[in-house]
């Protein structure tokens, strides 16, 4: 049957499947991708060609310069000699030897070489201390250790007696105990009492007590004044200290600005607007120049600490505004719900409002931090030798006078790595919190 059927020639239907054909070249593989993504229309095609030309133009100029880079020389003139000998005088070649010659200075500034282990250890401690804060997968109890790391890092970097940071850290324990004892009486009393007692403790008791203990039990390492700090170490010290300190301060300021208490509210507004209304460079000049006149000479208040304080206040004002935006975005019902549960102000803020407000503010906060970290390079204008300041010092030596791009490329790359990492972390955090919220 089937045989006869199959022999019927029928003009109207096909009996066998056509062999599968390859799709047209324009609809497959690389060509399809190219056509769809790079040359979908005439206009886009032209733009693609122009863009490719621009990329080629840049790469063809930078590429050889970069790839021909000379890493082993003692001075710029030696670099030029090596280039002339190996590539000819017209070749373009970067002289990265300046980085291999001066990288220690770019990283540690004038910190004594025998003590390089201290900032290195402090850096890894900082990463370890940050990890429990940044990643939820790490057990919460590690947070206690995280709270200790700033004091350990201070001790490692500045050196001196171990008792000074120890007794300053003890201030938090004193504060915690006071708050607990006074908290039984009244919240307001607890707050004011804690601030007062801890303030008095830090102002009058901590350092003399530390000195007294030090004279009995001297434990410490070589003290290194912060004027020896420089390079990336200085940027990271200023940047991280300001980041860590400005977040809580900024949240407090945001709450104060949203507060109904007249005085608190107006003081917060005044502080934020004044700090935010004046450029950072002016505050840095204030820290470096004006404070010198106010303080009695001889007190010699550490310039790096002054800068850290100013940068912290500056970034706290920005954080406050970012967090205020977050607070405003939390629906009113959440506040009312918290009230109806009978939570007091701090409880409702801590448990209901701030977690939501902060989640909303993450991109803004991280944005502020990235800006802050890059702004640390402004300290070059008050004579602190951060990486950018060091480029000038390095150029001032006769060996390296006349070198520009190599140093700037290196410094730019380092800042890019730090800022890019912060940006990626912010995206990770957003994704994580998004999922929990669903």
């Amino acid at each position, binding site marked *: 049957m089937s045989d006869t059927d199959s022999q019927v020639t029928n003009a109207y239907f096909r009996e066998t499947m056509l062999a599968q054909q390859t799709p047209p070249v324009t609809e497959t593989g690389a060509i399809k991708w190219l056509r769809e993504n790079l040359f979908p229309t005439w206009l886009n095609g032209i733009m693609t060609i122009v863009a490719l030309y621009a990329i080629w133009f840049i790469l063809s100029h930078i590429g050889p310069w970069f790839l021909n880079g000379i890493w082993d020389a003692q001075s710029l003139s030696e670099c030029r000699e090596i280039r002339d000998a190996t590539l000819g005088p017209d070749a373009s070649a970067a002289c990265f030897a300046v980085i291999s010659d001066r990288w220690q200075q770019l990283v540690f500034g004038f910190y004594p070489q025998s003590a390089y282990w201290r900032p290195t250890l402090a850096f890894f401690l900082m990463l370890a201390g940050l990890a429990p804060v940044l990643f939820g997968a790490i057990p919460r109890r590690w947070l206690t250790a995280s709270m200790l790391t700033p004091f350990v890092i201070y001790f490692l970097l500045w050196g001196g007696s171990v008792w000074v940071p120890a007794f300053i850290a003890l201030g938090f324990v004193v504060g915690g105990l006071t708050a607990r004892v006074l908290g039984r009486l009244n919240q307001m009393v607890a707050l004011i009492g804690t601030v007062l007692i801890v303030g008095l403790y830090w102002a009058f008791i901590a350092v003399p007590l530390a000195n007294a203990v030090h004279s009995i039990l001297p434990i410490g390492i070589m003290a290194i004044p912060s004027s020896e700090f420089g390079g990336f170490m200085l940027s990271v010290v200023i940047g991280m200290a300001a980041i860590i300190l400005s977040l809580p301060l900024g949240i407090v300021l945001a709450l104060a600005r949203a507060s109904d208490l007249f005085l608190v509210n107006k003081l917060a507004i005044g502080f934020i607007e004044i700090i935010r209304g004046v450029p950072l460079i002016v505050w840095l000049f204030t820290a470096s120049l004006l404070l010198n006149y106010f303080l009695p000479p001889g007190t010699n208040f550490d310039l790096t600490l002054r800068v850290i304080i100013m940068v912290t206040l500056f970034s706290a004002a920005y954080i406050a505004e970012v967090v205020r935006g977050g607070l405003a975005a939390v629906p009113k019902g959440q506040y009312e719900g918290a009230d109806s549960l009978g939570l007091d102000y701090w409880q409702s803020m801590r448990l209901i409002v701030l977690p939501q407000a902060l989640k909303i503010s993450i991109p803004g906060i991280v944005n502020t931090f990235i800006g802050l970290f890059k702004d640390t390079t402004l300290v070059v204008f008050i004579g602190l030798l951060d990486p950018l300041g060091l480029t*000038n010092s390095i150029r001032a030596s006769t060996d390296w006078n006349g070198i520009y791009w190599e140093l700037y490329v290196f410094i730019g790359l380092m800042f890019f790595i730090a800022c890019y990492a912060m940006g990626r972390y912010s995206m990770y955090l957003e994704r994580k919190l998004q999922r929990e919220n669903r």
Partner: protein
Amino acid sequence: MKNTVFLGTLTVAGLCAAAASAATLDDVKARGNLNCGVTTGLTGFAAPDANGVWEGFDVDVCRAVAAAIFGDKNAVQFVPTTGETRFTALSSGEIDLLARNTTWTMSRDTDLSFDFIGVNYYDGQGFMVPKNLGVTSAKDLDGATVCIQTGTTTELNLADYFRANNISYEPVPIQTNAEAQQQYLAGACDVYTTDASGLAATRATFEAPADHVLLPEIISKEPLGPLVRHGDNEWGDLTMWVLNALIAAEELGITSANIADMSAAPTNNPEVNRILGTEGELGAMIGLENDWAKNAIMAGGNYGEIFERNIGENTPIGLARGLNAQWTEGGLLYAPPFR
């Protein structure tokens, strides 16, 4: 209320400042080191080497003062200062001595309340042009584009000079010396003008220094010198005589090579003996030990040695002594007698 507290603090701070600045030498001795303000980096004058040790022409003045006081040329804390922060750092007491190639002018000496303790480098504003421009005199620069740092005295000097000679020019404003070098090499301007020492240092870094010439005209006086706060004359005297000792040492032939011999026993030149402390009691007059000048000279050699090592003709910068030669050799260096 707040204002009163603020003003009160200011007054107290001011009083303390006045009280504390009275005896800089005591403060320095108690501290154990000299706080010396330098630039954040200027070729030949002050720069840290790869190990972070500061060196340069201005730095050696700091080291000589420290050596005179402590006998140790490393008892110096170098404080890098910028053009903006240098004067405040000095007047607020953050530094004891500012050796930051600062031009001695009347207003700085009087209005800003400083005392210049002398001149360690006589500079002046000059011009650099590419050789193929064929210019041999600044008077030929009619219509030229000039790279000039804004907000400096060089800008004003330039305007004065060109107006006085009735020639026109087109300024290309730039911010820093580094930017100026790039602009000049890229051909954005025909002429680069700044202090002659800076021009020489800049030219030394070019790939082909011989393709550029410095024009003979020097259009301004820039006496660069170290300075101290006004009001503490003892400290001013001390630093001034350390600088004079370095200059006199060159004139009298005391060098770091022969100073050990010369100071071992009195020589037959009484002035040398008085400087080196083998005769007389000059050290006590400025509150120091009698070997103060010997230590100062041993720190980095006499003025001539310091010059040759940092900026002299055998360095890449290659500056000739010119005005900075001893008065006996046609220069302006003239240390008053030590007696």
